[in-house]
């Protein structure tokens, strides 16, 4: 899904609300109803899917930060998790 990367929850819900509003106010033509319902279904799927699936891209990004931090050679507590004080 190409829009998965770009589409945010905010955008998705905004678009979804707009479509449903259009349908509810019946400002929509029956001819394009199918198309709109399809899009809405896609958005719902996107939102629900994103909530519950592990995004590999995010994981990758987070691990990259890890690597960078290691390269930067952190000082203090970062390098020595063993020494961290137990709360």
């Amino acid at each position: 899904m190409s829009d998965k990367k770009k589409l945010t929850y905010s955008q998705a819900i905004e678009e979804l609300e707009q479509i449903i509003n259009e349908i509810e106010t019946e400002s929509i033509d029956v001819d394009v109803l199918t198309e709109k319902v399809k899009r809405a279904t896609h958005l719902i799927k996107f939102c629900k899917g994103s909530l519950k699936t592990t995004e590999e891209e995010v994981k990758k990004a987070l691990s990259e930060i890890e690597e960078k931090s290691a390269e930067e050679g952190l000082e203090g507590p970062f390098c020595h998790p063993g020494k961290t004080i137990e709360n």
Partner: protein
Amino acid sequence: MEYFTLSELAYLIKSTIQSTLYDDYWVIAEIAQVSYHYNSGHCYLDLVEKKKNMTMAKMRATIWARSFSQISANFKALTGQELQVGMKILMLAKVTYHEVHGLSLNIKEIDPRYTIGEMMLKRKEIIEHLTKEGIIDGNKLLELPPVIQRIAVISAEGAAGYGDFQSRLNNNPYGYRFHYRLFQAYLQGEKAEQSIITALEKCIKHREHFDAVVIIRGGGSVIDLHCFDSYPLAKMIALSPLPVFTGIGHERDETVADHVANKRLITPTAVAEFLITRSREFEDSIDELKHRLIIKTNALIESEKHYLRTSADSFLTSTRNYLKTAKVALRENIRELQTKALTALKKPSVNIKEYEGKLGNASEGLIKNNRQKMKDFRKVLSVHPVHMLSMQTQKLENYKITIQLLDPQNVLNRGYSITYLNGKALKDAGAAKKDDIINTRLYNGSIVSIVESVREEKKE
């Protein structure tokens, strides 16, 4: 030369102190170091007075085990905190001197209200400063995304609070996925403030990967809030482009960090719960929209169907009605036609009868008429038969004379002749040509001759 042994001098000091500083004094000092001896139950402190980083005075102090448990409990109950480094305390102390251990303060009582006041004052000052700078609500004004899924965690690896946070997020009942990354920091002690600031700096540096920062810490036996009442940390939180949530395990007091954070939650579990609830609310709103979509779409389709059905029905009804009306009209037309045809047919039959009558009359008249004429003829015939006969005879005689005069024999008798060519009377010399055989009939007999020459004579 008079001299003291060290012990003699020590004794002198001791007795002097005992005789002149025998009262208990209320003293204000900052804790520079604190240690608790588990075996003895005594608490040893280093007290200082500082003025712009200069140490003005320094003294050791002891809280004996018999009073420590009561002092400590009271202090904790009122301040919500343990005695800790950096804290200013108001204590009732007696100056003691021990020949071996030296000068020390024996702390008999601590008034926690002073410490609270100090803490409050410090917080108030920081908050006022940030307010003056106009950044106090900076983090609160950040708009939160509907789902906070990628989280930068500032905590300590292995800390109970972080464990709670992880397990709550990972085992949420809705199956939501949260992506978090730990940024290690000390959360108490002298290094805490700086290490939290460093961690937050890193989070902000990688802000495109995160929806929010959470600062969490489990509420252990030792509660040190000192590091969260820090101006530099509070300022960094206020200016952070990422929303910051705190869950530093402290219910009663709101630290400056809590105050400037986007949201202050009590425990790490509460932070996790907040994030889960937010996702849940988002999913609920999606479900609600989905529900509305289904309801409305179905309603729309249903109404279209209904419209179609009604249209078809009304088309059928109106067609039926039309056909009915047309049938009636047709029947009427047929009836009218029949009536008219009958009337039309009746009219000529009347005429015919009239004509019949007329014809009958006329023919009767005609017959009568003719009969009369016949009668008349008969009368004429019977009256004039003789006269008629003689008249006819005379006429016949006249005709006989005329005919005799016209007989060609008579003409021939007078010397005329008729010439025939091929059996036909020759009237024009041009009709004959040389060597034609012509027959000339005379009154008596005829001559056959061959044409020698023809001479035409134009006749008008």
